[in-house]
């Protein structure tokens, strides 16, 4: 069964994740599942620098470390369960029938990879638990998750606003062509105002791309506003968003290798940082 899966943690965006996931699940008529991953964090170990080993040191140490982990894990488990219950209650209040919840141990990326086969849309917050004080920081797991998974990912900010107008950043790539077709066929955005922007020079090729996108979407019954802009991709998209009160952006993510990203930076990372609206990332 293909789920809308929402990653819940203790961060500020958890409520928004919950709301957006409920919204998506209802529109797509897909079951909603909340996921809480209990990461194996590196807790500080009490320093014992005595450096000696005596009778049964190994067994004793194993017992001691296991007990410590046990206590912490129990707390984390309980806390996670409370968060999941709260999220479920919120989703039920928003009208979702029978939201499911899952709790798993491990790394977020690995866990999502395992669950990928029954994943239709992933909803995840922009920042994790530790990122709140860091301003424009984006969560440490986010890029890995986006690069690893081959499913659409909705990255949400901390506030929920029901999407009315969506913006599709179209670059003519194969990924985004598929993306446009997906938007056209998916019930998720049906009857929302749809803007398509191509950033590029005023050339025949760009116009052709724009026209293709417009016809595809119009055939699917969308009301489309298409425009061709020139300039820096990030600035154009941010500007357009403000001018037209866009409240969701659809775009391809991390089209380039990590090496290129290291050298010239990534549009995706930039937009993730600046954006105050949810981004639907397609790979």
């Amino acid at each position, binding site marked *: 069964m293909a789920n809308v899966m929402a990653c819940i943690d203790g961060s500020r965006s958890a409520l928004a994740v919950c709301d957006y996931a409920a919204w998506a699940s209802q529109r797509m008529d897909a079951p909603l599942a909340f996921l809480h991953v209990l990461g194996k964090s590196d807790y*500080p170990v009490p*320093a014992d620098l005595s*450096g000696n*080993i005596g009778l049964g040191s190994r067994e004793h140490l194993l017992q001691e470390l296991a007990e410590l982990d046990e206590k912490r894990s129990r707390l984390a488990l309980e806390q996670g369960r409370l968060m999941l219950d709260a999220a479920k209650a919120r989703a039920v209040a928003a009208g979702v029938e029978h939201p499911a919840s899952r709790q798993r141990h491990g790394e977020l990326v690995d866990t999502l990879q395992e669950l990928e086969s029954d994943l239709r849309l992933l909803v995840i917050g922009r920042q994790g638990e530790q990122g709140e004080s860091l301003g424009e920081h984006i969560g440490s797991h986010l890029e890995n998750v986006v690069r690893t998974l081959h499913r659409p990912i909705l990255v949400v900010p901390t506030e929920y606003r029901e999407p009315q107008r969506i913006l599709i950043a179209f670059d003519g790539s194969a990924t985004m062509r598929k993306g446009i077709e997906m938007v056209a066929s998916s019930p998720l955005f049906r009857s929302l105002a749809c803007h398509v922007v191509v950033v590029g020079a005023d050339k025949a090729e760009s116009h052709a791309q724009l026209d293709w996108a417009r016809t595809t979407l119009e055939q699917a019954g969308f009301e489309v506003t298409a425009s061709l802009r020139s300039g820096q991709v990030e600035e154009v998209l941010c500007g357009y968003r403000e001018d037209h009160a866009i409240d969701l952006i659809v775009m391809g993510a991390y089209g380039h290798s990590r090496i290129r990203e290291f050298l010239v930076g990534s549009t995706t990372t930039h937009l993730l940082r600046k954006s105050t609206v949810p981004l639907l990332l397609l790979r």
Partner: protein
Amino acid sequence: MMNSIRQNWFSNIRGDLLAGLVVALALIPEAIAFSVIAGVDPKVGLYASFCIAVVTAFVGGRPAMISAATAAMAVLMVTLVKEHGLQYLLAATLLTGVLQIGMGYLRLGSLMRFVSRSVVTGFVNALAILIFMAQLPELTNVTWHVYAMTAGGLAIIYLFPYVTRSIPSPLVTIVVLTGLAMLLNLDIRTVGDMGELPDTLPIFLWPEVPLDFETLAIIFPYSISLAVVGLLESLMTATIIDDLTDTSSDKNRECKGQGVANIASGMIGGMAGCAMIGQSVINVKSGGRTRLSTLTAGVFLLILVVFLGDWVAKIPMAALVAVMIMVSIGTFSWTSLANLKTHPLSSSIVMIATVVVVVATHNLAFGVFVGVLLAALFFANKVAQYKYVASALSEDGRSRTYTVVGQVFFASADRFVAYFDFREAVDQVTIDVSQAHFWDITSVSALDKVVLKFRREGTTVEVIGLNEASATIVDRFAVHDKPEAVDNLMGH
């Protein structure tokens, strides 16, 4: 990529640096002591410990495991050093590394699954006994001062942590005993008497041995023992650290990494080494969790030795003996003694046999070999008992049905044959093996034997219900269902 580097190196910086320092301080006495066991200058063991720790920090398969010169390896080198000298030891160290890399590529690490818990316990206990025995020469024919100092040293090691746990107690022992010996001007043996200490950073050295077949013939037996023992101890230690830290390790990478480390060690004039159970436990106990702790241990070790060399030379051997006795006590599995009462006799025998063989031969590989062999025999014997044959005579007394249930293989084949009553005169015998497993050619030939024996008594035999597992092996080897084969068998 960046993430895994951070996870493997910099996720626990404070804990790792401190733990690395504690381990480095404990590594110095050990490296010196093991050099003494092997019969080489302390600098050979110290360079080896530095090099192996640093290299395995990068290429090893188990973060936070400490590898260096070890007792298990040192006892294997004794005769080589005595008969052929240091240069051959260096050559053997290089060859050990090459063999270990080969074993890593052949994925021999997975063979560890045949080493049972009892054998591991036996190995650990034998290692502890070897370390203790190696201290005995320092404790015989000496003045009472040495005994007093050793006892005092042990007292400090175990009692000082009650005062504070922020200073390594073995370090306190060494400092106090060295100070005492110098103050009282005691005439006892010191590290300086044991041979040359490192005075420079290590330099590249190619072993000065003739590169011919004769050299290979000399070093190969030692290298193969070293390679096997090194990997055994490393993989066992890796498992222990896996359990302690609740993380996993890459065993085959560890095999290859240790090979690389040994080659590097041989090239800078160091002896072969492997992972150390005691030091690795100390590392985890002190808070070390990542590769950084291993690297820190190696680097600190060299810095301390090179710059404090003059002071290291003044450490009395009694202080080292105290530290080594601590390592021996900490390595020994004391619960295994209590478990002797509760564990099955067979597993206790395996454990004790492993210990006895190691202590007798000073070669941990032989001990593990005997232990694994015994464990396999006990297992075969146990499984062989899961078998019985029921039989029923038909009402007219002219045919009998045997129903075989359980495992038939080399260990149970004879008893399988003995279940059948060949003296009974019946027309027809049905052997129902649908609930039995025939594992090997011994069991198949046992079934053949039964069938042929009945036939020669004039009885018609029918075997029914050979299940899939048995059918394959019976089809491949058996003779009774091929008419011409029966004649062949009779001709013998």
